[in-house]
């Protein structure tokens, strides 16, 4: 089995993906990384190095909230929850992004 080639994220999409992930349920940083990797069939590999600064930034913007909780394995972990402002932001970004993708698609595959 040849490993799937990993692709870099389009700039600006990380925030959107994190927000989307957190709408499912509150998660800790590791969980977010795992989730993105799994769902994208390992195509998207989140750099832990950029994940944490992004989380700090989003927290300061008021899109997500952070709090310490126990994991199912009874470990202390910092869980992130999406706020209402975060959901609004996600909606905006998602709409914009899908429009962009459709436009690009039309150019790449003209009917």
């Amino acid at each position, binding site marked *: 089995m040849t490993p799937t080639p990993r692709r870099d994220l389009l700039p600006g999409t990380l925030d959107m993906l994190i927000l989307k992930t957190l709408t499912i349920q509150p998660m800790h940083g*590791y969980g977010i990384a795992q989730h993105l990797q799994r769902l994208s069939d390992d195509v998207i590999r989140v750099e*832990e190095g950029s994940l944490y600064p992004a989380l700090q930034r989003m927290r300061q*913007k*008021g899109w997500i909230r952070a709090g310490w909780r126990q994991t199912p394995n009874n*470990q202390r972990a910092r869980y992130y929850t999406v706020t209402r402002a975060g959901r609004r932001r996600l909606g905006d970004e998602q709409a914009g992004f899908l429009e962009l993708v459709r436009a690009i698609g039309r150019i790449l595959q003209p009917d």
Partner: protein
Amino acid sequence: MREWLIRLRDWLRRDRLDRELVEELRFHREQLEREARGAGAPPEAAAYAARRRLGNQTVIREEARDRWSWPWLDHFLKDLRYAFRGLRRSPGFSATVILTLGLGIGANAAMFGVIDRLMFRPFPYLRDPDTVHRVYLTWQDRERSRTSSAFEYTRYLDLKKFTTSFSQFAGLATRRVAVGLGDASRERPVAVVNASFFDFFDMRPALGRFFVASEDVTPKGANVAVLDYGFWQREFGGKNVLGQTLQVRNISCLIIGVAPKGFVGVAENEPPAVYIPITTSAGNEPFQRMAENYYRTYNWGWMSVMLRRKPGVSVAAASRDLSQAHVRSWNAELALEPRGTPAAVARPAAVAGRLRTPAGPDAGLESKTLLWVTGVAVIVMLIACANVTNLMLARVLRRRREIAVRLALGVSRKRLLAQCLTESMLLAGLGCVAGVAIAQWGGAALRHVLLRNISALDVVTDSRTLLVAAGFALAAGLLTGLAPALLAGKGDLAGALKAGAREGGYHRSRMRSALLVVQGALSVILLVGAGLFVKSLEHVRSLRMGFDAEPVLYATANMRGMRTTEAEQETLGLALLTAGQAIPGVESAAWVSAAPFQSSSSTNLYVEGIDSVRKLGRFTYQSTTPDFFKTMDTRILRGRSFTAQDRKGTPLVGLVSEAMAQALWPGKDAIGQCMRVGNDTMPCTTVIGIAENAVERSFSGEKGFMYYLPIAQYEPGSGYALMLRMRGDPRPHQETVRKVLQAVMPGQSYIRVQPFDEIIDTERRSWKVGATMFVAFGVLALLVAAVGLYGVITYNVAQRMHELGVRIALGAQAKDVVRLVVGQGVRLALVGVTLGLGLALFAAKWIQPLLFQQSARDPATYGLVAVLLLSVALLASALPARRATRADPNSALRTD
């Protein structure tokens, strides 16, 4: 906005956030490790793989930390801590700077508090204060220009009728009358106002209502009263008083409302206790003639007018409109009294001026003096700033090596500048705190000593004053920090690094010398001002006023609006006089119809051979009892005083002042001459004596002419006060005299006794204020300048120790060294003194009107100040000079 709040919170708990991030990363790493182990990797390999996946944790932490840190804030705090440490290390320097700035800021805050309350502060609740004015009428009277904000009710009605530029009008006056009944009655300020007065303000009554136009009508308004909030709280305990009655003078008023808290109307001093309709007050005047005619004749000027410009009307246009109205009103007056001055000669005009009279065109000497004193406070501040700049420059020069090292180590010049400014700002901030404390304390002292009429001078709770103090501190911080900051930022790095303590600095003191010269010059100006005011005060004090009031008590009978007949008033006067003369300690007493500075009477005077006596000047008379001249110690130069034998039915007699005798009968003997008082058909009043000239209305201004008539012969009912000459200090007798005289007073009327000196003191106050404040600030300035000079010379000597040592080694005597050092200080002082004297001469013409019989270019004062300043300079440089003589030639030679 929200984001900034979160960031600020993050910044405050940044250490915790950092710890949390570390823990979060550890958790992530553990999970990765577990995952790898689950995939079958050995523990070390798993740990290694996890660490590799996670990447450089330090970088992550730093990146995250940037999100919750504010570099400039961190820098600022670091600078602040650095500055604090620096100041703690040199407590002498810090204390000097803080105290110097504190004195400057404090002086300004206190003075601002005074003049702001006196002239600028808008009245509470007043809507659009910028469009509200007071009317000042101007006209020419015997070649003199006159301005007054007090005029007749009739005039007010004219102005209202003849103008179109104003949307609101209100007439107002404050009268001190008895309020309350029986023992509870006190003399209180009562505002008598039009009903329209309340419409100038945005407010609702705390209780009840204000009076309305239908209750404020000529000839006599309704007997209603609105209470001041404070008065209501104090006297009625804030209870429901609506429907109760309150005695105001001779009017029994129904209380219909209470003004809101903090409302003072347009009171400049004490807020009024009660507001009543102006027509109610005037219509109930005890003098029938006034009560009946106040709104249709022009001989009782007692009230003032405030008005509001219509939108779009400029102040100049408003004044023009008022001026033409004043002309028409003047002509209306002439129609009633054809003997008045024609408008073409009197040139009546008007000004829509400031609502506060001390800021208006007829402001008194005192408020003008206070404005000058405020200017002086600013100069003190400048001197303080110059001094602090000097000290800071010295500090920077001392730290040149340290600064050079830091520059060499890569500290940016911008950061260095920021550090310097932080330090000066910190000092200014601490100075501000000291200043507010000084102003609070000084303001209380100021009020106690000089300005009893200013209601409160609290600084700590007054936002306007605090703001000004902060503004001054900010300016001081920038001003004193900038020069040192620039000096620190530039400069030759390598040179400073190489040089030892003996080089550098000395040659760079040109700026410091300039600052010293400026300080010296400003001090000279203040001291010259101080000298001039002190001399003025001396002149006023030593002035022979034409009487000696020091041991005199002044007892005024307040009839509380009781209408007395002439005979009753005469009887009362005699009774009071008899009672007064019997009091032990009373040397003599007189019943008077006028008192200097308090009241005066005038009437028409006819002298044969003189067309119009009025044109010669102002003639006022005093009808009194025979002992008047003895009581007031007014000297009779020739002739005699009248006696008990000059009574009703005997030939009319009188005394005239020396100046009056010369004016009416130049070159002739006035004694035996005839003058007709009141009417040209009256029999002769024969002049039987000539009295010395006496001050009548004011110290400055025109000189009037006085004449004296026996009250038994002329207007026996016009007496209203008793003058009592005591043996020695009158103050201890005050209460005894009041009790004895009160027993004589009928009904609700009462007697008020005060030392006459107090009245005169009030008149002298502007010079007292000027003298006290100029001296205080002048001495302060001199002290600060002396400390500055001392500091600079000392510093220079320290810098030149090596050079001086070489000089001594080469054979210089101690006196040569002293001459060198002292010469430097005195040279600087000389330049400063010359500059200061020049500026003072230049400013003389503006300060001249504030002085009393004192030239503002008095050579003696200027000379004295020059000598004083030079002596101080000599002293300030003599101390460092002595140290200079101890320069050690050995060590000087050895270091090279």
